[in-house]
């Protein structure tokens, strides 16, 4: 066995010191609760007095949700379809915008600020409030607002123009989602942009001196160099799409359903936990696919 040098051991110790604070937080506030919630999926959880009573039921919760529940499989299907659409549109859109924003032109700072603004409201209460102002959602606003920001008007125009129903459906589907989709791409634009800005200017200069066209430079230099960021963005978008609190207009409603099952009127904690766990297995499968297809290619380019 190779004996590790004093230097190596010292380095390893420093590594553990660095990672320790996060590991403590992770164990206490994530891993332990997570394992507990996994245990709940095999039990029926009942509130009793000031605690819970657990009754072991094996795989009953899983069987019920997957085969007896009317809504759950449908929710899963919507979530997956929605994710595929979002990954495709958001990745392309954010790459395009980031490449454009990385060019030199007047008003660049203004445009950058505009595209990063949605990050500030993409999650949490502000997003919900703005969405409900826009869509005339349940909490605030009124239904008439939906008239302005959705394709109702567009649909009527197209119907009058004798456009085939299929095309109307696709167009209105995308238009209805466009605000949600574009405002979801702020983080991805930011990641792409910071990736693009780290590319060495000297390499580009060399390419230009050699007479490469901008088109060639983009496909043969930029894309391979930022491929780790592309992969990062796809992974981020998959997770973001799956775990966002969508509305019925755009996005998946799975997170809301899980929340409702556990903390709403039904208060079925074991079903809620099981719904979440099945959902996360699905997410892991899709991330695995993404990693299998893209991850290796990225590491090949990098290596």
């Amino acid at each position, binding site marked *: 066995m190779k004996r590790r040098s004093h230097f190596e051991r010292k380095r390893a110790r420093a590594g553990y010191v660095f990672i320790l604070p996060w590991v403590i937080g992770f164990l206490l506030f994530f891993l332990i*609760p997570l394992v507990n919630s996994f245990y*709940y999926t095999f039990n029926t959880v009942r509130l009793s007095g000031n605690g819970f009573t657990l009754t072991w039921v094996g795989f009953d919760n899983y069987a019920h949700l997957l085969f007896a529940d009317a809504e759950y499989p449908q929710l899963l299907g919507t979530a997956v379809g929605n994710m595929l659409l979002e990954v495709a549109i958001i990745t392309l859109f954010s790459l395009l915008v980031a490449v454009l924003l990385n060019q030199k032109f007047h008003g660049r700072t203004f*445009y950058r600020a505009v*595209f990063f603004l949605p990050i500030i409201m993409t999650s*949490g209460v502000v997003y919900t409030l703005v969405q409900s102002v826009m869509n005339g959602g349940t909490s605030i606003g009124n239904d008439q607002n939906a008239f302005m920001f959705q394709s109702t008007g567009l649909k009527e125009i197209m119907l009058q123009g004798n456009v085939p129903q299929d095309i109307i459906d696709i167009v209105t589907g995308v238009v209805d989602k466009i605000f949600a989709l574009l405002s979801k791409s702020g983080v991805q634009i930011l990641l792409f942009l910071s990736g693009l800005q780290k590319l060495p200017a000297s390499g580009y200069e060399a390419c230009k001196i050699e007479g490469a066209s901008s088109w060639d430079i983009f496909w043969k230099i930029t894309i391979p160099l930022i491929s780790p960021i592309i992969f990062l963005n796809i992974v981020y978008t998959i997770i973001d799409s799956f775990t966002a609190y969508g509305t019925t207009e755009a996005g998946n409603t799975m997170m809301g359903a899980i929340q409702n099952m*556990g903390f709403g009127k039904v208060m079925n904690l074991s079903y809620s936990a099981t719904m979440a766990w099945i959902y996360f297995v699905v997410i892991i499968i899709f991330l695995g696919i993404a990693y299998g297809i893209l991850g290796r290619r990225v590491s090949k380019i990098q290596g």
Partner: protein
Amino acid sequence: MTTAVRKKDKPKRIREAKSARINRSIGGTVVIFLFLALASIFMLLPIVYTVVTSLKPMNEIFLYPPRFWVQNPTLSNFSTMAELAGEMWVPFERYLFNSVIVAVLGTIIYIFIASMAAYPLAKRHTKGMSIYYSFVIIAIMFRPEVTQIPLYIIMAKLGLINSYAALICPVLAGTLGVFLMRQFMETVPDEIIESARIDGAGEFRIFFRMIMPMVKPAWLTLVIFTFQSLWSTVDTTYIYNESMKTLTTVLQQISSAGIARAGAGAAVALVLMIPPVVVFIISQSSVMETMAHSGMKG
């Protein structure tokens, strides 16, 4: 003198040539502008509409068909919001104080924890680090909601209910920041770190004096995300004590009280947007500064 002038002249000419080549044609520039303008309209419209709605009097909010612009702008929605906030048991400033403490403290602590954890993960201090990295990857996929009930039990056992720690701690376990920081730290060349080690710099010195300044854009980005998510946390699980509630929680309660509060809701959304926008502007300008700086040096 003359040599100095020539030296200044030369890069200018190069820059001109470069910019000319970037904007190949007038047509291309126009297309870029049109695309960006169109896309930014989509980006800005929801925010603009929220601003406009917050200025609408009640009768205009319920107008059919709805009009985009406000006819008779009024600040009554803001005064309604202020009145409703004034009716609370606890002074408004207290809520604001809670929110600021939680968001600022939480952001600072998380940036430190996440960056420190990311460093050995990116630079593989030992082989064991790959296990932690796989934990990071797996954990990104989970939302805190899943673990809410068991988490509550742990919080209660630790005596953290009704404290700022109850709002900050769940964020500290977050792995997205660790993942992002690791991704950026990986691009820091090993040779630089190695040469610093040979020169006798300790790991902490390398981390704080070299790595962190080099990945400044990354952690400033993380500052924006973390502040935003802490600021917009609506918590009704861990905080029962009215005087410990955050501004966001209280304002959300105001706005969710039905359709009559539509205008006040838009006003609330607008007010809640301000602090993250400020943080964003501050950190964004220094992000660009860093980039410009490193660009000049490189």
